[in-house]
């Protein structure tokens, strides 16, 4: 028993649902989970949302979120069943033997306290070290995790450091009390690819150096393959497959795992550009007063060919969403103009003709806030039909059902409300709403980034098929290069408001690269073991070569 740090047997977790107007009833969230973790190993828990991975991940801390209860089985940490512990022994366990790193460090830090006080809080509370010793250890951890100016980093407040740094600070917080087990709950999901790679490497190194065990929860198989020794694949609260990382990635046994591994392998042949439908000429734009500060967009020019896809790639803050706002007319530019279908578009939305609005549609990142929660699917898709084409009554209904068919949903969705749909279905409805206007160009703003990989794949396939059938052009805004490879005909790479690289897909993705594109491309996690080390050693070699 002593060599197994964590030993979970027949774990069953239930929650009580209280739907309005019905009797409360229990649902089983997790069932029949068995796992054991020796010291110094990292287990990756992977699955889509609702798979129960976070629920299982939190169970070694004896914690259930929002009314979730552990109702069966046993959880042994350091040889004792924590489900039999009382509240005070539980407090002694949390933060000392088991620590937790949350997905959104920005939300997990208290903005009113300095980082140092929060990092060493648990250590002091458990009386594991004096304040001086704890601070010294924290500074060491800051250095190990590659945080800038480690001696003084802890004096800052959470809002004074970047998201990636905060995530690393949170890892330091977890490591500070020298726990036996750390639970990482999607620690890099909210970060840009380039930042994600650094944080991932820092976490991996810290785990290796301190010899701590870890549960690493994520939905991204390529990420978990870099840090985990073994992987457990979960679906609907049950285990699908469990094995060594290499076996799962290279030789998955179950059909579901195989699908997860082969995700993002969509490909299409890039078309060569022709006479453009939309040309953006020398756009400079900024928020606030003209001429003050740095513009968000600086002399941006791109073009889109009918029936093709231009992908605009960049990390957050690169100005890619602002470009969409300028094209739609929500933010009139300071300089430059937009040609659409042979005519110059008016800068402001209010001055544009209805016909221009119809031909230029938009799909949003967060499908659930992009639809009015009080409208039925029928109204959501039907309104553009009525608004642009004057379709009403039975004709409108028939056309809505036709559109539902095109997005692979049945006519029964006509009467549903957005709250009754899954994430992927919501995004499909948004696509149908855009399609209802029969547009020439659809702006897709990060349409797949809030979705699980398999669902995102389905959306991408749908978009490609619809492009083929309707010859509609896409302006596809994303930070995910794997998506770009799958869907783009041409690519514009943006960095700090400027287009740093622009051309057809094959040109942009072929060497020689500029520094930024190189960084971006080499930061995309690849679905194989050892990618992280290779990427870093290659960077080091390049740095020496220069």
């Amino acid at each position, binding site marked *: 028993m002593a060599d197994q740090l964590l030993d979970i047997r027949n774990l069953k977790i239930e929650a009580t649902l209280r739907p*309005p*107007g019905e009797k409360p009833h229990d649902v089983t969230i997790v069932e029949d989970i068995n796992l054991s973790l020796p010291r110094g190993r990292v287990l990756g828990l992977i699955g889509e949302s609702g798979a129960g991975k976070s629920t299982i991940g939190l169970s070694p801390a004896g914690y259930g979120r929002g009314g979730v209860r552990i109702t069966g089985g046993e959880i042994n940490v350091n040889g004792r069943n924590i489900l039999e512990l009382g509240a005070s022994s539980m407090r002694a366990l949390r933060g000392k033997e088991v620590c937790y790193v949350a997905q959104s460090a920005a939300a997990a830090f208290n903005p009113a306290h300095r980082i140092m006080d929060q990092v060493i809080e648990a250590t002091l509370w458990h009386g594991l070290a004096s304040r001086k010793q704890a601070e010294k250890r924290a500074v060491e951890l800051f250095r190990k995790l590659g945080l800038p100016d480690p001696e003084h980093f802890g004096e800052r407040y959470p809002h004074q450091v970047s998201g990636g740094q905060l995530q690393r600070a949170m890892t330091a917080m977890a490591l500070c009390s020298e726990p036996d087990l750390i639970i990482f709950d999607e620690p890099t999901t909210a970060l840009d690819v380039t930042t994600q790679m650094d944080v991932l490497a820092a976490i991996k190194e810290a785990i290796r150096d301190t010899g701590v065990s870890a549960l690493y929860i994520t939905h991204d198989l390529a990420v978990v393959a870099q840090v985990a020794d073994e992987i457990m694949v979960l679906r609907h609260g049950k285990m699908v497959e469990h094995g060594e990382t290499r076996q799962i990635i290279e030789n998955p046994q179950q059909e579901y795992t195989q699908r997860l591994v082969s995700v993002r392998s969509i490909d299409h042949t890039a078309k060569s550009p022709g006479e453009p439908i939309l040309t953006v000429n020398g756009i400079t734009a900024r928020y606030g007063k003209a001429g003050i500060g740095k513009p968000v967009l600086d002399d941006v020019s791109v073009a889109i060919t009918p029936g093709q896809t231009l992908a605009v790639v960049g990390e957050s803050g690169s100005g890619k969403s602002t470009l969409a706002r300028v094209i*739609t*007319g*929500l933010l009139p530019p300071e300089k430059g103009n937009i040609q659409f279908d042979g005519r110059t578009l008016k800068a402001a*939305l209010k001055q*544009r003709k*209805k016909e221009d*609005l*119809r031909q230029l*549609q*938009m799909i*949003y990142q*967060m499908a659930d*806030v*992009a*639809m*009015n*929660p*009080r*409208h039925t699917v029928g109204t959501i898709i039907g*309104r*553009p039909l009525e*608004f642009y084409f004057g379709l009403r009554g039975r004709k409108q209904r028939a056309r809505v059902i036709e559109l539902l068919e095109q997005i692979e949903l049945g006519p029964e969705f006509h009467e549903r*409300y*957005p*709250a*009754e749909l899954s994430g992927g279905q919501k995004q499909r409805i948004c696509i149908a*709403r855009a399609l209802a*206007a029969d547009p020439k160009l659809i702006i897709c703003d990060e349409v797949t980034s809030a979705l699980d990989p398999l669902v995102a794949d389905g959306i991408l396939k749908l978009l490609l098929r619809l492009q083929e059938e309707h010859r509609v052009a896409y302006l596809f805004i994303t930070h995910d290069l794997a998506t770009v490879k799958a869907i783009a005909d041409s690519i514009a790479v943006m960095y700090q408001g400027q287009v740093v690289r622009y051309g057809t897909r094959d040109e942009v993705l072929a060497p020689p690269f500029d520094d930024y594109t190189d960084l971006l491309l080499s930061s995309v996690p690849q679905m194989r073991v050892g990618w992280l080390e290779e990427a870093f050693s290659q960077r080091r070699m390049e740095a020496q070569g220069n």
Partner: protein
Amino acid sequence: MLRHMPVTAMIGLLLTVLFLFCAVFAPWIAPYSMAEVVGNPWEPRSAEALLGTDNIGRDLLSRLIYGARTTITIAALATILAFSLGSVLGILAAVLGGWADQLMSRGVDLLMSIPTLIFALLILSVMPSTIAVLVVVMGVLDSTRVYRLARAVAVDLNVQDFVEAARLRGEGRTWIIFREILPNALAPLIAELGLRFIFAVLFLSSLSFLGLGVQPPDADWGSLVRENRQGIVFGVPAALIPAAAIAALAISVNLVADWILKQKTDLKGGRSG
């Protein structure tokens, strides 16, 4: 939906319906007419006058029933006016933004900076105290509160992606206000509606008690309290009965409003769902 109604809401609904019934069918239920003198002043309860008589010998029960009609009608009309005015202008201000918003909001601030009761007394001492004037004065003064709530809710909703999507489609302001924003702002507004109705009842009662509300021989509950207040000195409870009616109405309507609010937020299609 009715089966899972909590007891409190049931009581509230029962009382509210009872009051409404009295208001609507007053001439048929009331044993006597409004102004008919049936006995001596402040007679105790008897078979002829179930609740006794008032300061000049009219039947208190009949006056209470007719009073319900006056009170509820004026308060309801004023609340409806306050709501239509306040919520539409509030959402409009949020949608328009800029100087139009500033102008409207500062105007409302100005109105709110004057104590409501004093302002109402001021206007009613110049204008005749007819029902129409009362409704308009109360409605406009109350609409400032609704305006602020509606604007606050709408400002949040106005920046949601689905409103932006409607704007990109080219929708006009009418659609955005009534079809995109209003349905989502309804839950807090309905909660406010119950509360505002009660405030209107209390406000009207205060005005009548001060003698500037409903004029004799008509009477609402506030004027009933006023007419009979001297009776308290002699141990006659005639003033307490309309006061109790006001309290009962206030509580019962609130219980119903609370329940409706809960239903609304629990409904399918809510943002919390």
